[in-house]
Every structure is written in structure tokens, then in C-alpha cells.
């Protein structure tokens, strides 16, 4: 069981009478890319926020990187990276200042930060944008930067909430290269997406409908199970049953 990084049992979140996440259970293995799929409003973001220690579950339990999501959320935060759906770096700081800020918050020393930042800028081909205000970067670049900053402290798990929404296909491809590189270093990726081609890149995929996980397997097995030719078809088959609207 040592290679289980995220373990969730009967996780539920209610907002008043509305059950956003309904009795969800799953495990994520170390080093895999776990695709967390679902239509808008299916409860993906809510579930992810509970795993990241931003939100308390109404009931159920879970652990991330060996720490309990209710009682040890601050410990979890040391070992994860998170990229929210809404771009949330500081638009009024430069690329370098954002990197320096978050590296400092994660407790990296000055020298260490500098070394990683230089490497990171080179990898992203961002060297000439070092002193550009983040707010003036194109969306695709912002997202790549956000990913780089979410992984600056070499976390065990990285949570990505629709990281490629609104991003052009070329940048999307580059983004997935970054994801693959991170998994090669042993990082586990937990990603939500609406692009079914991206779902094919995942090691395993879960599909959420109306707050429940309806399917969980490798893309190949899912296609077989639903007798579908693509993940797109699998998704449509499952999401058609959704009662929740947008």
C-alpha cells in the first residue's frame, strides 16, 4: 500500500441541502497521472479543494501524501502543489518576483531559489520575460508559469484544476510535456480537464457525474467497458445521465 499517495473514503461535501460531492472513494498511486473528469458542476473542484486542505469535508475521510485531510492539512500543504482553475498568481508582480515569493513561502533558501528559478526560466524559454509583469503575459504562458511555481518545491502530488482551459493547442501540448517531465521525477499528477484527448494521456481516469464517481479505470479499459472508440464517447455516455445542469 506504500505506493498509494491519495486515498479517499466516502468523501462527502454538502452546501446546505446541495450535495456537491457525494460519497466518493478512490485511490491514486504514486507517479501516475490521475485524470479527474466530469461535466461542469459535477463536483470536481470541490473534491480537489478538500484534498488540498482548502475545504473541510462534511463527512468521510482521506489522506494525501500520508497525512489526514482533516487534521493534518497544513502538513499536506508542504507536500503538494496546487494550480487553481482561476489564475491566481500575482498579476502585479514580475515572473521572477512571483517565483521568488512562492519559493520563499515554501521555505527555499535564497541560493536554492535562484538556482531553481534560473533552471525553470530556461526550461520554459522565459529568460527574456524574467522582469515582465505576470499580468501582461498571454494566458498560455501564465498557465505554464503557474505550473512551474506549483512544482517549485518538488511536491509529491500536484493538483491541477483545468490547467489548459482556454489555452491554444500548441501550448497545451507543451503543458503536457511539462506534466510528463514532472512524473518522470516521481511526482503524482491529479488533473481535471474537459479535453478528452488529454484524458487519453492519463494513466487512469475517473469520471464524476452529479457528485459521484461513476467510472474509474485506465482509458483503454474504460473504452472497452463502454464499447467506445474514444474517451469522448465514454464521457458522453456517462454524462448524458447527469441531472445537474451547468
Amino acid at each position, binding site marked *: 500500500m506504500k505506493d498509494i499517495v491519495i486515498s479517499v473514503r466516502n468523501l462527502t461535501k454538502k452546501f446546505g441541502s446541495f450535495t456537491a460531492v457525494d460519497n466518493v472513494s478512490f485511490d491514486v498511486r504514486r507517479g501516475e497521472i490521475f485524470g479527474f473528469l466530469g461535466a461542469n458542476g459535477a463536483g470536481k473542484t470541490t473534491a480537489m479543494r478538500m484534498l*488540498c*486542505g*482548502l*475545504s*473541510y469535508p462534511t463527512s468521510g475521510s482521506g489522506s494525501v501524501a500520508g497525512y489526514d485531510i482533516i487534521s493534518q*492539512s*497544513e*502538513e499536506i*500543504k*508542504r507536500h*503538494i502543489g*496546487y494550480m*487553481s482553475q*482561476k*489564475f*491566481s*498568481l*500575482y*498579476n*502585479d*508582480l514580475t515572473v521572477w*518576483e512571483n517565483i*521568488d*515569493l*512562492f*519559493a*520563499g*513561502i*515554501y*521555505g527555499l*533558501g*535564497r541560493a536554492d531559489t535562484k538556482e531553481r528559478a534560473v533552471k525553470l526560466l530556461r526550461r520554459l524559454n522565459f529568460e527574456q520575460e524574467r522582469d515582465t*509583469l505576470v499580468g501582461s503575459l498571454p494566458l498560455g504562458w501564465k498557465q505554464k508559469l503557474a505550473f512551474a511555481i506549483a512544482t517549485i518545491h518538488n511536491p509529491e502530488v500536484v493538483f491541477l484544476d483545468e490547467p489548459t482551459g482556454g489555452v491554444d493547442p500548441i501550448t497545451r501540448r507543451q503543458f503536457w510535456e511539462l506534466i510528463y517531465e514532472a512524473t518522470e521525477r516521481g511526482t503524482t499528477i491529479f488533473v481535471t480537464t474537459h479535453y478528452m484527448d488529454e484524458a487519453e494521456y492519463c494513466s487512469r481516469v475517473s469520471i464524476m457525474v452529479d457528485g459521484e464517481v461513476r467510472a474509474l479505470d485506465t482509458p483503454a479499459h474504460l473504452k472497452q467497458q463502454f464499447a467506445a472508440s474514444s474517451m469522448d464517447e465514454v464521457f458522453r455516455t456517462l454524462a448524458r445521465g447527469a441531472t445537474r445542469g451547468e
Partner: protein
Amino acid sequence: MRTFSVLIRKEFLQLKRNPFMPKLIIMFPIMIMLIMPLIMTMDVRNVNVAVVDLDNSTASRRIASHIDASEYLSLAAVTAEYSEAMNALEEGDADIIVQIPSDFERETAIGGNKRISITANAVNATKGGLGMQYLVQTIARALAEIKGERSPAGITELVTVKNSYNPTLNYRHYMIPALMIMLFILVCGFLPALSIVGEKENGSIEQINVTPLSRFTFTLSKLVPYWLIGMFVLTVAMTVAWLVYGLAPAGSVGLIYFGAALFILVISGFSLMIANFSDTLQQTMFVMFFFIMMFMLMSGLLTPVDSMPDWAQKITYFLPPRYFIDILRSVYLKGTTLADMWQNFTALGVFAAIFNVLATVTYKKQK
């Protein structure tokens, strides 16, 4: 330490990049200290007096000329008809009517009691009230002079007023400390809250909440920059007060800074606490305004606490500016020392502790 220093750096960079904030922080204290003391004066000048002289004697003319000579009063009309003076009052040409009865001079000389009557338009209560006081003093002085001339041995001042500490009863000197407190409330009370709620609105606070950054460090990083800015604002305000109005503290400058240091912590801590309970700028502004109205109107900044109703005086004990205005006025005008004011400093210290602990505890990284 590195974590804290990157956070402080971030706050200052953000302030610097804001197109508006640095200008505001410099211009605010200068403008307020330059303009407000000029207009916030409650000194009453140019009270127009109409004299109804039914006596037409040396004494009555002497009274009129004293009124005319007074710095605060001006002689609007001298007439023998009360109705004429009343018209002037109704038209707004006169604020006060003085009626000197016939045979006034003769009767007073033999010790009789003819009375001068005064009618004031009290629609503007301050002008009416204060004008009346000035007038009474002026008439008293004129009468004393007349009496003194008759029997030089017995010159008696009828009224002696000596204002300690603010000898010229300069209203500006009384208001300047209050203006300084308003500056602190505006700058150090609003900015920290706006900064936190701004981060809530643009989502960057979420990126902070998902890091292991402790809420204590984060709160402190929002507190320290505004504390430094508050010290800067105080320095500017004190300089302007000294250069423009010639008001230098009678007591220790260090004590003023110490009091301000505590007060800024109080007001910023309060502001951070409000921010923790608000999700939008609108909400924050509305709630802050409510409290700031109370702070400004009930803490004795503008009106003395002693003349408030009892129940309101009890409420003022819970308003931190009450303690600081006492400190600032006493140190500035009287030269009071720490030993005389330690209760006020302690009260500010307690408020600072309470608000900042609450600001930290109510900051929720996980909901």
C-alpha cells in the same frame, strides 16, 4: 525569516506598482493637514451685532465702540428702534441684538439696576452661543472701563478667563491631533482590509492558502507595511503642523510615536479582522464605514466626551481612538509624560493585542 521578508517585499512591490496608492499615501496627510485645520475651526468670527441705543449716552456709545473694535464682533447697525434691529436679524444682517435701555448711564451711576438685554439668533447654535459669550465679555469690559474712570482705585475685572495649555484658545491646535487620528484611521484602517479583500477577489489568496504559510506570518505581513506607512504619515503630519501652524509638541516626540505605534496596530488589527469576515470590497467598505463613523464621532475627536450623555460615555470606553486622542492632545498641548498617561497606553496595548489575536484566529485557510 526569509519567508517573512519575501512577503513584506511583495506587499511593498504591490503598493509601489499600484498607480494610485503611493500618491495617496503622500498626498493624503499633506492635504488634510494643510486644508482641514483652516476650515475645521469652530472659532466664531464676524458675529454681527445690532445695537438698539435707547440711552444715547457716553456709556452706550462706549459699548458700541467696544463691539466695533472687537476682533470677533462687528457692528452691523446702531439704531433707536428695536423693530429696525429685529428686521436686520430677520434679514440675516445681524446675529445678535443688544438693547441698551434709556437712562442706563444715569441709573448705573447711582447704583440702580437697569439691564441691558441681548437677543441672539440661535439657529446657528454655535454662532449664537459663542457670539453671546463674546458679547457679554465685551460689554463687561466696556462697563468696567467706564466704572474704572469714575473711581480709578476700584478697577475690577468682572470676568477673568485664562486658558491654560492652549493660551490663545486656538481651535486649530485643538483639532490638529484629531486630524492626525483621522489620518491613521483612513490610511491604516482601510488599506490592510482592502489589501486582504483584494486578494480574495482576484483569487491570489487561494494560492497562499494552499501553501504551508502560517496564518500568523501572513497576518503579520499585512500588518507591518501599514504600520510603517502609518509612521510615515505621522511624520508628515507633524512636520506640516509644525511648519504651517507652528504647533510643536509640548511633550516628548518619542511618546507620540509610541502612542501612534500602538494605535496603528489597534486600527490595522481591527481592519484585518473585518476583512476576514468580508468576501467583497463592497462589504468591507460598508462595515468599515460604520465603525469609522463611530470612531470619529464618538471618541471625542470632534466633540468632548464629557458632554455626551452618560450611556454614550460608557460606549466610548470601547472605542480605541478615545484613548489615543487623550494621549495626543495631552502630549501635544500640555506636555504630559508617560507616567501620567500610562492607563491610556495600557488600554491601547490591550486593544492591539485583542484585535490582532482575533485577526489571526479568524483568518481561515480551510473552510
